[in-house]
């Protein structure tokens, strides 16, 4: 493989199988230095397996990958010196306190105990964990655990950081905090490879996205390009008077190409809609027909819609044990 110094990650034809399950079958990736790059896909698509190969945790069965110019198999130690990983399971020790966790990782990175302790204090402060520093991580909330996990990953600023579903299972506020941290890291120049199941997360953070399904990259581009390929989603309309819905349905069907969906709410209906202009036309037509609209919204396409558009099948978890197939080890 030709070495390209502007690339942080360069993978070609990566493959990994666990027994009969082919988790990753030929993934190519090119992530520029300094970029936040998203890997988007459902559970079991092969995202975690790909990250684990790039982070030197799993040996690829086929293909090759260079991380920051170092081969992930032959030069694993050089890769490890420049990356950090925040895994799907928060990689912190529950039986230690938050502070002890950071001191431990600091010492393992080569700090002396005192320096490690000082660095831990700085990070606890920055991540709003000072108050909880002396408590066992066992007692932390999901959001606190995730913040500690990320803090442990930046004790020494990594050149490249892997974030595997950093907001899965978090409440909206904690999710926003994690997003802010990711933006701060990116602004500091760290390259970030982010795995996610959520289109809006990739949309919020990533400059480039690869959509993964069945262990393959099925689409690649900027968030805008991907969304454009699907259309802007669905127009949701709620009427003041439920009795007018049949008439509204006829008008919407005439203006928009797709099938009109009648919602469970007797006053609501929705239909696929390409852009805002079209949506405005539909709302105008309803108003001219004397149908009062209580509210309407043009939703972003969901991951399901992107998947449907890209693959012709809905995004769904594959196999009997998707979690196991993905990580290949966790019982």
């Amino acid at each position, binding site marked *: 493989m030709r070495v390209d110094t502007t690339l942080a990650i360069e993978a070609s034809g990566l493959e990994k199988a666990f027994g009969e399950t082919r988790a990753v079958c030929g993934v190519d990736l090119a992530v520029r230095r300094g970029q936040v790059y998203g890997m988007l896909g459902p559970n079991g698509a092969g995202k975690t397996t790909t990250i684990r190969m790039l982070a030197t945790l799993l040996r690829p069965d086929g293909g090759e990958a260079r991380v920051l110019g170092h081969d992930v198999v032959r030069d694993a130690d050089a890769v490890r010196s420049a990356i950090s990983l925040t895994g799907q399971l928060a990689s912190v020790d529950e039986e230690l306190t938050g502070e002890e966790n950071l001191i431990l990782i600091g010492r393992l990175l*080569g700090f002396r105990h005192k320096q490690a302790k000082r*660095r831990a204090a700085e990070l606890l402060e920055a991540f709003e964990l000072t108050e909880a520093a002396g408590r066992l991580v066992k007692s932390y909330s999901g959001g606190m655990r995730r913040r500690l996990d990320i803090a442990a990953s930046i004790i020494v600023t990594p050149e490249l950081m892997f974030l595997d579903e950093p907001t899965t299972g978090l409440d909206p506020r904690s999710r926003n905090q994690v997003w802010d941290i990711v933006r701060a890291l990116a602004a500091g120049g760290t390259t970030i490879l982010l795995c996610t199941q959520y289109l809006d997360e990739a949309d919020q953070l990533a400059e480039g996205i690869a959509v993964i399904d069945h262990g393959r990259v099925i689409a690649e581009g900027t968030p805008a390009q991907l969304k454009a390929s699907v259309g802007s989603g669905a127009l949701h309309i709620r009427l003041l008077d439920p009795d007018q819905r049949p008439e509204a349905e006829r008008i919407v069907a005439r203006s928009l190409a797709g099938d009109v969906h009648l919602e469970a709410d007797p006053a609501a209906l929705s239909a696929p809609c390409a852009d805002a202009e079209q949506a405005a036309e539909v709302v105008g037509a309803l108003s001219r027909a004397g149908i009062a609209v209580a509210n309407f919204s043009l939703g972003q396409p969901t991951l399901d819609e992107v998947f449907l558009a890209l693959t012709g099948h809905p995004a769904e978890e594959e196999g009997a044990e998707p979690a196991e197939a993905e990580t290949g080890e966790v019982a």
Partner: protein
Amino acid sequence: MSTARARPRAPQVSELAVRSALASGARPARASAASAVLAFGWRGILKIKHVPEQLIDVTLTPVLFVLMFTYLFGGAITGSTGEYLQFILPGVLVMSVLFTTVYSGVALNTDVTKGVVDRFRTLPIWRPSPLIGAVVGDSVRYIVAATIITVLGVALGYRPGAGVWGVVAAAGLVIVFAFGLSWVFTTLGMLLRAPNAVMNAGFMALFPITFLSNVFVEPKTLPDGLKAFVDVNPISHLVTATRALMNGTVAGLELGVALGTTGLLTAVFAPLTTYLYRRK
């Protein structure tokens, strides 16, 4: 979308703070193998500090054995409880330290199932250091277990013929053996799926192998088949060597067998654990 983000009173992680925390300090020189091992040893000791109950678990059973066997069966077996205590105490010391070795496997399995191993494996450190560090940290557990049994024994009237140094030498031997045995359980810890499974399998193996030894009775009173097993059981040799050290007598052969077994267990199971750990 971002303008509508609701941000109620809760503590804020400010972007500025994160950026300044990022900026500070340069990368230190890579940790040496020794300092990585020490850091992991420190981690093991902290765990004992935070969850001291785990020590109570494993030391309470041998304490109960000392009390039960001495006062319930002692008179019947040797004619006097004092004489029986003198006989079983070194054996119970062996037993209580060996029971704690199962926890090495339980701890390793917990690390693997909880995901913290992923972080260790992506750090630029000497590969076996998490394993060796954990085993080193466990020595604190062994010392505590050995101390509790010895103090209890002396309080009940046990008198080591070789004095304090005999006891120290005996405890040292047992702890060295425990290091070897703990590799068996770390291997088990890498193979089984849950910490509880490691605990159950560990004790299921340790109970018969420690009971079917000369800890509680002289082998000559046993039926032939059982006696044959007890005679070759390395735990019997370890117990005999420990007794000898505590009583101030010499049991060179048994000492050799005990140390040889330690070497063998380490030579087989330490590389096996390391191999499984790398492949995870």
